[in-house]
């Protein structure tokens, strides 16, 4: 999609080398673990953790005579994901065997989809910054089995194998080489993760390995044909993806500027050393001897099944963002931040309901998110509920408390809890709008500071000093507008 746009170098993305500008070209293969109770071709549980080899069926252990049976829920999840990526859904796809020997691959082959994937081309819209949006083409999405895990630290002489992950369903989501910087790569993965979480098709938990990225990086002079790429395998955090891109691009530019050439190879990113290292060269690459798995018939379903799934899809982030901009009048950036997580968007909508939507957005984004970040909490574990935050917004708009007091109130609700309205009452945080009380305070200050009165009459900006004094005396509860009005009339300015 939009290859037109992406074939042209984006000048702001170019990086300087000794011989001029270079363009980084990035494509990604994301392995996303399908959210499902059981594995892709067996009934074994997909639960994370558990003792080694606790979730292994006869099929997962590749016992003689065992046969795979497709898990329909995994198929539905792949279709939902394809729909979320605005992609072509293929009603007929084929499972192939990818043959190689490894102890954590019990069958001696991985069941994957090679020539006929379940999902074809699609598009992801990515907000790179507040003002920059790009479209990233999706090449394909296919279903495949995860492998087990080799454990090398259990015995001085042997390696052990844990097959709990063996056969768990993965979606491999392949992008087109449409990304041009580490920042874009990070933004793309972040957006993809948001979409997957909205759909509920992958939990996106990179720490648990639910989302892993293989990053293909090459560099070229702007306008030149694509350079030779290197694939950086299994990068497991968004931050590392960005680092790996930068480090690898710099390595390649260095080699090219020294007159060398890039060897196509698979590399590993070492976050500790901040470098990529060769894992295997093209010559060492496996010949996977792909062929259609004869144990499985082609995967076929009707378009009506796809339509049925489509009709039950949740509102996706792009649509939600557009709606927030349209219905709540939010700027693009704010709407984008709010829809990043489905739970945040829902929270925001609860706060905004029947209230000043922009004020609600400010409170959610600036106060709540900021405070949650500081505490390392997320929206699901927020100590302030949408109702409580809505109550605070209500108190401001009713003029019961000032914006400044509201921040104090928020802090109390965040740390101690409680109903904002009651707190305002019991802690005497109510704004003083009674002009009698304000007048008394103003009179007292004027009487005590005749020199300042003279100064203020000569220079009206001195009014601020008086306002400060009144606020101090009233514990910040005086209505600032009322204070201003009273001061102006008493001072005659």
């Amino acid at each position, binding site marked *: 999609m939009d290859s037109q746009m992406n074939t042209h170098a984006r000048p702001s993305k170019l990086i300087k080398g000794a011989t001029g500008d270079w363009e980084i070209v990035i494509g990604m293969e994301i392995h996303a673990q399908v959210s499902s109770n059981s594995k892709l071709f067996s009934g074994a549980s997909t639960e994370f953790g558990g003792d080694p080899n606790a979730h292994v069926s006869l099929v997962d*252990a590749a016992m003689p005579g065992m046969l*795979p049976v497709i898990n329909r829920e995994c198929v539905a999840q792949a279709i939902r994901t394809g729909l979320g990526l605005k992609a072509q859904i293929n009603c007929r796809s084929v499972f192939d065997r990818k043959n190689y020997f490894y102890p954590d691959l019990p069958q001696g082959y991985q069941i994957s989809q090679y020539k006929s994937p379940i999902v074809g081309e699609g598009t992801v819209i990515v907000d790179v910054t507040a003002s920059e949006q790009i479209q990233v083409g999706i090449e394909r999405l296919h279903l495949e089995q995860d492998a087990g895990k080799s454990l090398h630290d259990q015995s001085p002489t042997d390696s052990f194998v844990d097959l709990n992950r063996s056969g768990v369903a993965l979606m491999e989501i392949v992008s087109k080489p449409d990304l041009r910087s580490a920042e874009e790569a990070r933004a793309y993965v972040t957006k993809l993760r948001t979409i997957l979480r909205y759909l509920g098709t992958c939990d996106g938990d990179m720490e648990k390995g639910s989302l892993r990225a293989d990053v293909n990086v090459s560099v070229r002079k702007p306008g030149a044909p694509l350079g030779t790429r290197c694939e950086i395998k299994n990068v497991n955090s968004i931050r590392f993806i960005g680092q790996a891109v930068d480090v690898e691009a710099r390595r390649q530019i260095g080699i090219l500027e020294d007159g060398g050439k890039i060897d196509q190879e698979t590399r590993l990113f070492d976050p500790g050393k901040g470098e990529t290292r060769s894992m295997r060269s093209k010559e060492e690459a496996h010949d996977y001897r792909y062929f259609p798995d004869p144990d499985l018939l082609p995967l076929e379903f009707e378009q009506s099944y796809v339509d049925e799934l489509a009709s039950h899809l949740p509102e996706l982030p792009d649509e939600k963002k557009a709606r927030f901009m349209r219905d709540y009048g939010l700027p693009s950036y704010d709407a984008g931040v709010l829809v990043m997580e489905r739970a945040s968007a829902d929270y925001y909508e609860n706060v905004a309901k029947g209230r000043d939507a922009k004020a609600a957005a400010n409170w959610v984004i600036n106060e709540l998110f900021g405070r949650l970040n500081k505490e390392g909490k997320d929206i699901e574990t927020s100590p302030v509920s949408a109702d409580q935050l809505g109550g605070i917004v209500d108190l401001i708009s009713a003029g019961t408390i000032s914006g400044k007091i509201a921040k104090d109130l928020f802090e109390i609700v965040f740390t101690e809890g409680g109903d904002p309205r009651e707190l305002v009452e019991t802690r005497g945080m109510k704004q003083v709008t009674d002009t009698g009380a304000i007048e008394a305070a103003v009179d007292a200050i004027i009487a005590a500071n005749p020199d300042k009165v003279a100064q203020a009459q000569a220079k009206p900006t001195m009014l601020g000093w008086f306002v400060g004094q009144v606020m101090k005396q009233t514990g910040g509860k005086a209505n600032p507008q009322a204070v201003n009005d009273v001061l102006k009339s008493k001072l005659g300015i």
Partner: protein
Amino acid sequence: MTQPTDLTLADARNALRDRKISSVELTQAHLDAMEKARALNCFVAETPVQALAMAKASDVRLAKGEGGVLEGLPLGIKDLYATKGVHTQACSHILDKFRPEYESTVTAQLWRDGAVMLGKLNMDEFAMGSSNETSYYGPVASPWLPPKWTEDNARSALASDKRGLLVPGGSSGGSASAVAARLCLGATASDTGGSIRQPAAFTGTVGIKPTYGRCSRWGMVAFASSLDQAGPIARTVRDCAIMLGSMAGYDPKDTTSVDAPVPDYEKSVGASIRGKKIGIPKEYRIEGMPAEIDRLWQQGIAWLKAAGAEIVDISLPHTKTALPAYYIVAPAEASSNLARYDGVRYGLRVPGRDISDMYEQTRAKGFGKEVRRRIMIGTYVLSAGYYDAYYVRAQKIRTLIKRDFELAYASGVDAILTPATPSAAFGIGEKGSADPVEMYLNDVFTVTVNMAGLPGLAVPAGYTADGLPLGLQLIGRPFDEETLFSLAEVIEQSAGRVTLPKPWWN
């Protein structure tokens, strides 16, 4: 009175039902026969304790007038089928000491219906072979005496290396030999390129490979998944029909099995074949085929005609290409299916310096020569740069072969009659040692049927001049095993039941 072991499966069933014999008696008679016939090497594992326990339980059910269609009938099981807690190695060293914790669907259905397990039957290693000579457990001798041999000659050969004795065919050599020698009433077998039909033809027994998808492959050690199919070998057409009725059926654990009701196959045995249109494919008249095979074929045509069938000449033009294409597709799938035997989780492990060395040592020692050859062929034809030239072309040929049959059936043909094998049984050690293709040619008439996924049945129809049994093959429409049973019954009745050799091996 006839020996209990000489009964057909159907007669034994009736005798049990009529309480003329008990299952324990019947089973013990077979266990005794097995013991005396050990030199034939049909069984690689005998399960007498289990057999008698099952027989006893069957007798209890029979006494109450209960029991399934195979209640109390002792059977042999090809070593390819997973049998819980019992030797299951597909006669390979690489599955050394493997005893599964599970039961194959097909055998589970036999036990569900009351059958009694006598033990596990010898076979070519991983079902790769046409003579049962590739078994890790050594060759099986056919109970048929080689032409002009005396019983004494045969007994002394049996006591030494078996050279010169006849092969029972393969890969289901143990099954065919055990059935012909009356060591079991019937046996499970499996057929990837002819492994039921060729041994049946070589031993004067009846074997059917049903339509691909008719029986579940779950729990059968895989050779070539798109071609493998379970089936029975027994002494009569009726016996095969009874056994297949129990073995067949949809299994949600095998998504290539077909969800269609299983007919009462026994009912089709003896049904009229009047008006059935039988195709005679000219391409099966191959160069160098012995005249007696051709005469047998003509005889078969005459019998079916006499019973009211209509004979038509048909053409299956891609027949010639089937064997070479088969020897690409089957090894390709096998090379992948056998990758799991790596020494990591079960079976043989030969220690090595590192993981690759362990793999290499284990697989070099664990697999026999023919299996290694096919893994190498299969790996080669799937390799980058060769895939299109071999595997893809072979698949195209497969489509054409299938189309040949479809056109024949579309023209109104109900079944096709061909010879089962291009020759009678040959001697142990006689073929294939210099050129494996010599052995592969055994399957020339049978592989087409696997490539097209059709049902095929081999029935004895006569003898060579030397007195060795010869069989004819009937090929049917998909899932029309019933027509094959009806036609085969006509041939069996017309040819007269085979006179099986007396037990000279005792």
